[in-house]
């Protein structure tokens, strides 16, 4: 356990120094209470108080569109080469919900057979977390899934103590960075201030009424036939917004593109969504998830049931993005409450 202190008026120097080593990405205000992780060069550009960004930082770990292979058909026999574009970078001010999301994806892509594009890229990314001191809005459910407090997943973690940040150093890489920056060690008074902040959060993040997280596995074990899925299906637009913005949705599609020389080309992978009409269709014509109701159910099961069996945790990080972005007012928290009510 190692804590350091950064005075708020030194933040700009910290960001600038870091930006000299590698590209730094942080939340930036986009207007209309929307935020996005973008490249920054100074602290002034960063929105330190922000609600979850439009896309989660998963875009740095598995880009929306990513090249996997280059191929060349010039000779009789095709030639190909695996490719990877993985620059060293830092993401700054990542909230605990998104740290949890990255941890989930790490598990998925580290599972055999491993995804080297993801893993090699992950190793190049330096993660700096930022603590939330209150709910960002009514759509968030981080306390419900226990993600309102840090559970690892970062190199450094910042907590606002008013005129200064207290920084938890979690990795050797993080230690080297704060030493290099010459940041002072936290004193006993700083540690006491941190304890006080955490104590205050217990009130600010009181558990959500209506959906006891401990009950959810039991609820989902019996919810396959629930009529609630049909209510969601009747409203869903199948736009895929909910899955694209989800920090733990990782389904993808792959496609080949040939260049105009008709001899060389490349293969890409793109984010895909289980909400799209033909996601589960096979070439022969059968569509194994044709109904929107089934696709919505599938999305919820991929957050609250399947990953519990496989990765021992919920894949809902409580960020609330799916509810915020839904064109059809489908609310994750309301759906959970309805499922719990139906279960009784």
């Amino acid at each position, binding site marked *: 356990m190692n804590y350091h202190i950064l005075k708020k008026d030194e933040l700009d120097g910290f960001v600038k120094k870091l930006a000299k080593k590698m590209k730094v990405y942080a939340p930036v205000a986009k207007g209309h209470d929307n935020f996005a992780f973008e490249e920054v060069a100074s602290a002034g550009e960063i929105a330190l108080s922000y609600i979850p960004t439009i896309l989660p930082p998963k875009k740095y770990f598995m880009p929306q569109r990513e090249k996997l292979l280059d191929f060349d058909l010039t000779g009789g*026999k095709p030639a190909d080469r695996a490719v990877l574009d993985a620059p060293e970078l830092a993401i700054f001010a990542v909230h605990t919900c998104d740290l949890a999301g990255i941890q989930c994806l790490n598990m998925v892509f580290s599972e055999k*057979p491993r995804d080297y594009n993801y893993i090699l890229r992950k190793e190049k990314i330096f993660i700096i977390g930022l603590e939330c001191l209150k709910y960002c809005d009514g759509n968030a459910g981080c306390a419900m899934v226990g993600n309102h407090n840090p559970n690892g997943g970062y190199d450094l973690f910042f907590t606002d103590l008013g005129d200064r940040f207290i920084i938890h150093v979690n990795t050797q890489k993080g230690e080297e960075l704060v030493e290099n920056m010459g940041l002072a060690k936290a004193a006993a008074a700083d540690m006491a201030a941190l304890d006080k902040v955490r104590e205050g959060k217990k009130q600010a993040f009181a558990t959500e009424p209506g959906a006891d997280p401990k009950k959810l596995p039991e609820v989902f074990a019996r919810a396959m036939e629930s009529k609630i899925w049909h209510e969601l299906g009747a409203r869903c637009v199948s736009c895929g917004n909910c899955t694209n913005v989800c920090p733990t949705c990782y389904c993808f*599609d792959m496609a*080949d593109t040939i260049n105009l020389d008709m001899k060389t080309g490349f293969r890409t992978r793109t984010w895909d969504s289980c909400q799209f009409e033909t996601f589960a269709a096979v070439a022969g014509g059968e569509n194994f998830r044709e109904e929107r109701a*089934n696709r919505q159910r599938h999305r919820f099961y991929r957050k609250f049931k399947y990953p519990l069996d496989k990765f021992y945790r919920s894949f809902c990080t409580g960020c609330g993005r799916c509810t915020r972005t839904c064109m059809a007012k489908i609310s994750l928290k309301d759906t959970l409450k309805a499922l719990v009510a139906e279960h009784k």
Partner: protein
Amino acid sequence: MTEIQNSNWKLRKGQIIAAKQMTATEKWFDIKLEDGDLDHEPGQFVQVELYGIGEAPISVCSSPTRRGSFELTVRAAGRLTKHMQGMGVGDWLGIRGPFGKPFPVKLMTGNDLLFVAGGLGIAPLRSLINYVIDNRREFGKVDILLGCKTPTDMLFGSEIAGWQKRLDVNFSCTVDRTAPDWKGNVGLITSLIPGVTINPEKTFAVVVGPPIMYKFVIAELLKKRLPERQIILSLERHMKCGMGKCGHCQIDHPKNYYCCKDGPTFTYEEVKESKKL
């Protein structure tokens, strides 16, 4: 960055060494990999890459007992499989795999076997049937039931004639619609099951066919008191990555099955709760 060359997305190169049009829509290919054997087990599949067109999952239809190359039977269904109909000897393709859980050969050893294949289902099942024939003394009684739409849709005709002649397997076949020179059975494949003697204590039924066939064949097998765990199926889904990641082949079932990794072979007991077989 050299580490990325370990990527599981890398493709092995295969060359078509023999090809044959089997029906109007199905073509058979014998493929040799430049870097050695495919090293598959019966029931597994490969991802076939046609550079610049994409990939499609295809079940291997040859038995691993046949070494040196492997075989695929491809029905013209999607973009890639339609394109493959025009390919022939000497053409190259990319291969990833083998993928998927094979048929449980160890579990089946020492037992009677009943194979039920409908339509293109004979392709994945053939990898197991030929494996069993090549290791015939390891198994008890072997029955093969085959169904197809019309006599001209029958795949592996000459090889099937060989199975018919064997004394160590019982073979019967039916067509949905007859043709002038057809002398065999006419009717659905379910009509052949009552005629088979099944010892429920020591029989494994392996059923591969279109989704609609499973429901009716399984009902017949259950009537014969065959336990659900002794009915083996091979399910169809769009297996895109083959590595249990891309999400396309996941089965709507309380148990988070990925068809590409946890399947495509399942016991009926494992998947009976699934929304669609």
